[in-house]
């Protein structure tokens, strides 16, 4: 899941080297914190949050397979 979010985020930003995802693991859930360069924040959020919503949908889908609920937080 962490790897997936990282892959997707890197494909969207201008500075892929500054993409960082840290995972806070709980028993039944995992919080994925996505950090990107300050100029790139808009690129992972999108107009009306559409990109952030799509990222959450995709990560949530992959979390089903791992049996853990994933929550994506975008840090700025």
């Amino acid at each position, binding site marked *: 899941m962490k790897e997936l979010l990282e892959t997707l985020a890197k*494909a969207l930003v201008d500075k892929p080297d500054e993409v960082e995802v840290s995972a806070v693991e709980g028993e039944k859930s995992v919080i994925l914190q996505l950090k990107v360069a300050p100029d790139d924040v808009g690129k992972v959020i999108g107009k009306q949050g559409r990109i952030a919503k799509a990222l959450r*949908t995709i990560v949530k889908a992959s979390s*089903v397979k791992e049996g853990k609920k994933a929550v994506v937080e975008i840090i700025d």
Partner: protein
Amino acid sequence: MSEKTQIITKLVEDIISATDIDCDISIEEDADGIHVDLRGEELGILIGKDGNTLDSIEFILGIAANRGQEERSKVFLDIEGYKSRKKERIEEMSKQAAEKVEQTGEAMSLSPMNPYERRLVHMVLKESTAVITESIGEEPERHIVIKPI
């Protein structure tokens, strides 16, 4: 292979490997855009409810392909033929709804659809001399109303 197709190929491969799903990837480019087709077992999770996950992946692929490019290309994603089946269903349903509107003379609202699906309905009924189609409301509730002429 164009630069955009290379970007998409790499990204699709990375997504598949990160989700640990076994599948065949086929990517073709034509005048309409870049067509990505995935076939394999257990791809249901990448389709999602009402194709939500599929639409999200397609949306992200489209943005990734066009980032920093002057000319925009469309990216089309299909998984296990889900979208082509859905397209047929929507076209069939549109024709039936139009017939009903023509018979009853009453306008009919369809369920909310995404822009791609609404466009399909408009296209199917474009030539009709009995009904007109109109999109009303705001996303995600935006939907088509079929009206008698």
